């Protein structure tokens, strides 16, 4: 299996570090090449790191509730930056307050995120999906070429 590169980080002014450290370990153990930007990462930093490392996916965390403000526009900026086929995942406590998840999901799907995860996301499941999503995008890309 080819090693996939993923960029990890907590977006915006968010300082929640615990989940991020666990995700880093988990995906590294699962065989990914993990570029972890840690907490308080701007959209630009995510994009720069993805370009620099030729990443297959960006996995964004937002725990602190201001995710809606921080996550808007990233898909557009990725495309502008030439990251046309990058997988975009986002997870955590994405909005302010305890809200119905399907509404949150729709909101972030509309922003261009491929998959949206709750805090209790099963990481094994996520790994499977991530491999699938990367591979299917890759084959799209290869077909194009």
């Amino acid at each position: 299996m080819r090693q996939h590169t993923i960029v990890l980080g907590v977006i915006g002014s968010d300082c929640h570090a615990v989940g991020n450290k666990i995700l880093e370990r988990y995906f590294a153990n699962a065989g990914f090449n993990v570029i972890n930007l840690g907490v308080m990462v701007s959209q630009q930093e995510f994009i720069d790191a993805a370009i620099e490392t030729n990443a297959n996916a960006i996995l964004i965390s937002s725990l602190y509730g201001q995710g809606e403000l921080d996550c808007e526009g990233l898909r557009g900026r990725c495309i502008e930056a030439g990251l046309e086929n990058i997988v975009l995942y986002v997870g955590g406590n994405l909005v302010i307050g305890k809200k119905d998840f399907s509404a949150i999901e729709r909101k972030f799907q509309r922003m261009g995120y491929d998959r949206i995860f709750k805090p209790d996301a099963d990481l094994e499941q996520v790994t499977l999906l991530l491999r699938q999503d990367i591979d299917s995008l890759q084959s799209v890309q290869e077909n194009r070429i």
Partner: protein
Amino acid sequence: MVVVSEKIDMTEFQKERKEVLETWSTGSMIDLAEGIEFQKNLSESKRFSLVMKNAQENGLLLLQPRAGVALVDEHIKLLSRLENYCDLLPTTIDAYTRQNRYQDAQRGIERSVKSGQSMLNGFPAVNHGLEACRRVVQAVHKPLEVRHGTPDARLLAEITLAGGFTAFEGGGISYNIPYAKKVPLETSIRHWQYVDRLVGFYQEERITINREPFGPLSGTLIPPFISHAVAILEGLLALEQGVVSLTLGYGQLGNLIQDVAAIRSLRELADEYFQRFGYTNYELTTVLHQWMGGFPEKETQAYSVIAWGGAVAALSGATKVIIKTPHEASGIPTCEANIQGLEATRQITNMLKDQYLPDSRELSIETEIIKQEVRAVLDSVFDLGQGNIAAGAVRAFQAGVIDVPFSPSIYNKGKMLSIRDNVGAIRVLEKAEVPLPESVYKYHADKIQQRACAEGRQPCFQMVVDDIYAISKGRLVGRPR
């Protein structure tokens, strides 16, 4: 930047102050003399320090929630309802303001107006400015504290104290290490010396502002001695600037004995160090935070975590308890969820108000262990500082003498590893550079070994991960499945 440990000189302060007030438009409104006048006219029932002191003298346990929304009127509505259920009011500040990103906070305010619901995770007090703060203070009947997580809180302090808030949480270490990534410790400590000097200035004018170092740090497997060392250092730094009313904090960990030993040793150690440094004129109280790590998603389960926090707060004799809510795992609580957390907590703290955990061999040992640990760490800090507490703290973090688990800061070593023992107390698995006495380290190792035996696996990072998830998955010790 070189940080020194001494009372900031008033001319220097005034010069710096001018610059601080210029960092956002609302700063220009602040007039110290007028702020003091406003504070003088507040009723005694809104004076945080006084309410804390009375509670302590009468053996009461006060309840305080967390709460803050983007817009002023909404915030007032929220606090006005909450104050029927709590003893002390908060104003939690949003995360942009905490990073001095006032422009982003402004966008958050605008989006909140548009969407009809708060898009910020707190109240952007700097953007709203002085008059808005005063409207809040005047609308409620209980003492108000600013609760945040701001490495540079100088402008926030100027505005909220002139605005009539009577307590201010945080400190140069506790509001940096868990809350920032790249802010040098000397910078945040210096900025907090400013805040403490400001509070000291109010104090000189006979306005007591309560100061509360943030106890729980990252809320994640923090051994009591680490947070105690930080709390006492921040207490000393505050006293240095003329602060008088201090509430030292601690985040509940879940093991009854360790938690009670922690609150008990925190008081005793603080007195010991404050007096050793020549301070006598201070008002010391303690606060316990209900479990600060990951919560179970089910509200039924969350209620039990909340109740256990309330029980331990009562049994340990803390003066204040910061409450959680059944929404904790999911999102910022609605007003209703906050009230639910308060009602549940009130029931248990009332039921246990006259009870305490009696002395026992186990409790004495645990208390003594924490004391030995804190003394070892603080002695090393003072050695490193050579008379300069602030510099000692900075060097201690550089050297890993103080090491906070799961901190996002690059100025924290992050080498020490802690896990739960077989009864759920937090122990040090790898001390790294933390100068724990050998006998104490051995004590930790033995306790961890007991768990390892019980679980039939060697202590390892997976144990740490299991412990992080444990409470959210309905237990305390992260046993293998």
